[in-house]
């Protein structure tokens, strides 16, 4: 298995799907000659031409809307948005059209579109480029929400997204683009949606994360083992919709404690949903209330000191775990 960075794994997925299915095409700002803000589409214009790799004007709502139209007409568009914050400009198209047309047409029209976007803090891009709002999209029935944490998952999940008949919101953490890992080169390598990944087995506490926060959880698990002798199980959700709650419940029934780690704001966030589901299904197994380690209630600041203060850290995770014993 070749080793590659997540951005290269994503590109491989796009390439393979474009070769497999000629209805797949890409649209986005600066994705052509430049190869995209995070170099994911680099080289694809040269390989596939302008027909299938389209640079667009700065018009997020417009390009998502055009993507919906093309999907309704039988193509499989992938729209790249520079950041999740800019996806808000297209929120109406995503929420009121892409997510609902299938239902509203009584099953006559579906929207098989992939919308990719970057999210996450830690890169000093401040309040209108850095938020983690995967949970927001997970709120809407009709959308599938995918948030990979590793190069292999990125490839397998993105390839799977092109084989879905619904709109898939595919969210990539900026801190993960440079991550390296082994990635299968089998063109049929797919990762099914709704299958969480147990990254590390443990017996004393379950740490649940996705995308960027999985890495904080894993680092915290190592610290807990080495410094406190606490054995933490780490679960990467991989997709928020569909959600593999069964894997989480099984783990909590074993460890009796759960900490959810998320970059997003705590108030009204996905961690709250997960916590409620754990409570509903595993209340009797819990030795302590489910804990949430999340971003602070503030727009993401630019200055490094301020940004550190706003983001959850592995120390915060360790602290939350220790408070349960």
């Amino acid at each position, binding site marked *: 298995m070749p080793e590659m960075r997540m951005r290269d794994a994503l590109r491989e997925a796009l390439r393979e799907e474009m070769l497999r299915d000629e209805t797949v095409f890409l649209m986005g*700002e*600066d994705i*052509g*000659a*430049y190869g995209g803000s995070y170099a994911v589409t680099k080289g694809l214009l040269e390989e596939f031409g302008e027909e299938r790799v389209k*640079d667009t*004007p*700065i*018009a*997020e*709502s*417009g390009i998502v809307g055009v993507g919906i139209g093309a999907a309704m007409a039988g193509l499989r568009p992938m729209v790249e948005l520079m950041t999740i*914050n*800019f996806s*808000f*400009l297209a929120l109406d198209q995503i929420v009121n059209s892409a997510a609902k047309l299938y239902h509203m047409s009584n099953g006559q029209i579906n929207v098989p579109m992939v919308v990719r976007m970057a999210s996450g803090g830690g890169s*000093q*891009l*401040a*309040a*209108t*480029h850095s938020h983690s709002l995967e949970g927001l999209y997970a709120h809407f029935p009709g959308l599938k929400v995918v948030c990979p944490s590793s190069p292999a998952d990125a490839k397998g999940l993105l390839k799977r997204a092109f084989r879905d008949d619904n709109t898939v919101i595919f969210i990539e953490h900026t801190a993960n683009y440079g991550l390296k890992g082994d990635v299968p080169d089998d063109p049929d390598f797919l990762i099914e949606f709704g299958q969480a990944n147990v990254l590390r087995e443990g017996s004393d506490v379950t740490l649940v994360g996705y995308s960027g926060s999985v890495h904080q959880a894993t680092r915290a698990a190592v610290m807990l083992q080495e410094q406190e002798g606490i054995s933490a199980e780490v679960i990467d959700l991989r997709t928020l919709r569909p959600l593999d709650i069964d894997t989480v419940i099984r783990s909590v029934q074993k460890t009796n404690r759960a900490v959810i780690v998320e970059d997003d704001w705590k108030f009204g966030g996905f961690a709250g949903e997960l916590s409620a589901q754990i409570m509903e299904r595993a209340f009797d197994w819990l030795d302590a209330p489910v804990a949430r380690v999340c971003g*602070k*209630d*503030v*727009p993401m*600041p*630019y*200055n*490094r*000191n*301020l*940004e*550190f*203060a*706003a983001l959850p850290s592995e120390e915060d995770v360790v602290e939350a775990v220790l408070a349960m014993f």
Partner: protein
Amino acid sequence: MTSTRTRRTRSQKTIEEYLLSEQQLEDMYYYMLLSRRLNERMLALNRQGRAPFVIAGAGQEAAQVGAAMALQKGTDYLAPYYRDLGMNLVLGMTAREAMLNLLAKRDDPNSFGRQMPSHWGNSARRIVTQSSVVTTQLVHAAGIGLAAKMRKDPIVVLTCCGEGSTSRGDFHEALNFAAIHKLPVIFYVQNNGYAITSRTDKEMPLENVADRARGYGIQSAMVDGMDCIAVYQTVKPAIDQARRGGGPYLIEAKCYRLWPHSSDDDDTRYRPKAELEEWTKKDPVTTFRDRVVSEGVFPAEDLQEIEKRVEEEVREAAQWALMQPDPAPEDALGFVYKEL
């Protein structure tokens, strides 16, 4: 800016033809040069690893300084975009403040280091804070114009964006709203040829953004944005007319982005070298200098004094700002809600 040195001969006749005062012409050169030299120093700090991000106005100084000089300082509003350092300087930002902003220092008067650099905001100077999401400030400008009209306040709002940003819905919604209500808003588009990597011809089928004004029933003008004097002469009457209730105006300044999009960009991947060389000959700062010297407006010695002063100001500002404190982590959570 006041000068104390002895006067040398200047051609009054030419100055009158420019419809500008001697002081204004001197200011034009000073602010354009200050903007350029600050940007150069900022990029150097970035390369030294001392400033994570720089986004600059190089090539757009004439477009910015000429337009901002047509505003009434402290009265009129500016809803700028990230390249508008030159405008901010004209409206009172100091070299030190510009450096504090770049370095996201505690005393940055724009945002305390909360925003990325070049996201300007200073309520005392009537410069409103903006999001990184392009074009959103144009709609805000229409709102400020609406408030001014409702209060019968004879102010004007100047709002800026690049040509690429005119593809967004907010551009069209702002123009339409301002046109319907005849609001005192100048929509000032700095067409610098690129939106990050996309050339203008990939962003719209028209050659001129100004042509879009007809669709909204508002007046428009195009101006050579590399010529500070022409910019002032174009923007000033539009502002005067808007102040008298004449409604909005769309002005397109044709300029050029002489540098990469930002410190994170590599423009050699998409920009032809010959094109850059061609435009470098039209550099707004050096062409202004050549013109005023050759037309006998300023003796070269006068300009050298300005140049020396600017060098010193920029050097001092950078050195000073690097020593200033960062914001403290415990202040990260401030100003989410305004308390009663």
